[in-house]
């Protein structure tokens, strides 16, 4: 019997052909490392932790799976309808014959393009020297005035103010508000930085905003902002987004902090440290005085000893002793003299007493006087019958002359 010219091939099993297809896919270089962009639909997140959805556009749909371990690390919140870019490899799940994109990482749509733009700008500005380490200015340790560039209504401002108030309330804050995303943001941010420079007296500038996608943060990659930061003579600390977000402003700043709060911390000393330092300084002051006092005290003691040796008081005490000695000798001498004189005097008194004329009367002699008072020592002075007085030791005798 004649067979048809087109001989049917030997039939291979479903498994075999599926396996063949799988190998075909897995051997294709493009398919093993691919970024795909599309919109999420039919999102399913069972308890296993794995994530299943389809990415679609106008013309087609692609089944996707994200294993639990990768799903945990996703930065993007998955929702039906959002446009994303997914990276992974294409393979085939043999059980149901479905080819799938096995996704390891996901980003918002358009971010790939933005990221390219970021790299381009970075290269260009870096070549101009805007990010050079030598250009970085030191951050002052004790700022008196801190400038802040951020949205007046954002959480970043509150975070920074809370941190500054807690750590270093002595400082004065000047807020130069600016939009932190949207087309108006770059010129406002740049103007704010220039204003704080021109104002004068600002010691450091904090520029920051809360976290967001690359698109949200894009204003901080804008050339106008980057140049304003690089050209700022006031040191700038950048605290933009989250720890893992890097913008060109971060590279141009004099210091990068992971978050706005981190920027406020970098700009200030902690009040606890200030109190500690004040206590230490007070201790040194007291110690310095103590040192002076004890130095003076011992100097004083030394002086005192030296002084005592040449002390007038000492001399006075010595002299005083001599004086006493002299006085004693004087007294002795004088006393002797006095006694001598007293003795002489006594002797004279005796002699004088013995020469007293009246004492003679006691020995029997008498004083004869005439009536006119004259003492009679001769017979020529008297006449017979004349009255005479005879003075004897104990009285007078009246008498008349009888015979001469």
């Amino acid at each position: 019997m004649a067979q048809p010219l087109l001989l049917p091939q030997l039939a291979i099993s479903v498994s075999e052909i599926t396996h063949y297809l799988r190998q075909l896919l897995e051997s294709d270089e493009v398919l093993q490392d691919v970024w795909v962009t599309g919109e999420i639909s039919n999102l399913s997140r069972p308890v296993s932790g794995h994530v299943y959805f389809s990415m679609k556009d106008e013309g087609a749909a692609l089944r996707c799976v994200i294993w639990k371990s990768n799903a945990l690390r996703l930065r993007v919140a998955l929702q039906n309808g959002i446009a994303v870019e997914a990276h992974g490899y294409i393979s085939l799940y043999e059980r149901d014959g479905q080819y799938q994109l096995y996704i390891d990482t996901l980003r918002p749509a358009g971010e790939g393009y933005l990221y390219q733009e970021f790299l381009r700008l970075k290269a260009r500005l870096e070549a101009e020297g805007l990010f050079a380490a030598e250009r970085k200015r030191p951050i002052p340790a004790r700022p008196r005035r801190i400038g802040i560039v951020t949205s007046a209504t954002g959480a970043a401002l509150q975070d920074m103010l809370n941190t500054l108030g807690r750590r270093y309330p002595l400082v004065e804050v000047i807020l130069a508000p600016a939009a932190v995303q949207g087309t108006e943001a770059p010129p406002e941010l740049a103007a704010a930085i220039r204003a704080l420079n021109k104002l004068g007296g600002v010691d450091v500038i904090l520029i920051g905003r809360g976290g967001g996608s690359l698109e949200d943060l894009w204003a901080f990659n804008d050339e106008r902002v980057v140049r304003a930061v690089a050209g700022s003579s006031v040191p700038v600390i950048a605290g933009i987004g989250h720890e893992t977000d890097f913008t060109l402003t971060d590279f141009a700043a004099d210091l990068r902090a992971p978050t706005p709060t981190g920027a406020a911390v970098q700009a200030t000393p902690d009040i606890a440290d200030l109190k500690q330092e004040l206590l230490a300084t007070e201790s040194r002051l007291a110690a310095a005085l103590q040192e002076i006092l004890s130095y003076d005290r011992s100097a004083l003691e030394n002086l005192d000893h030296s002084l005592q040796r040449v002390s007038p008081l000492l001399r006075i005490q010595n002299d005083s002793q001599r004086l006493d000695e002299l006085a004693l000798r004087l007294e002795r001498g004088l006393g002797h003299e006095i006694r001598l004189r007293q003795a002489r005097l006594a002797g004279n008194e005796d002699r004088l007493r013995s020469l007293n004329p009246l004492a003679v009367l006691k020995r029997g002699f008498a004083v004869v006087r005439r009536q006119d008072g004259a003492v009679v020592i001769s017979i020529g002075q008297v006449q017979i019958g004349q009255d005479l007085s005879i003075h004897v030791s104990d009285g007078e005798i009246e008498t008349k002359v009888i015979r001469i």
Partner: protein
Amino acid sequence: MSEDLKPVESLSYEQALAEMETIIQQMEGEPLALEQSLALFERGQALAKHCADLLAQAELKVRQLTGQEIAGLQEEKPF
């Protein structure tokens, strides 16, 4: 020292702290007359108290520039 001393209350925290430092160095330096040392010590104590008061009472002062002010403070600084 013949410099005029500003009243302690008028000094900023940094100024007061700096003056304390100067005083301590003077006191640790060549020996001064006792009266002078005591005068320096008293001023040092007053400065310390002023600093402590500033730390205790300080409240963050915030001033917000207006759009007009920002516009008025522009200066082209080409980099």
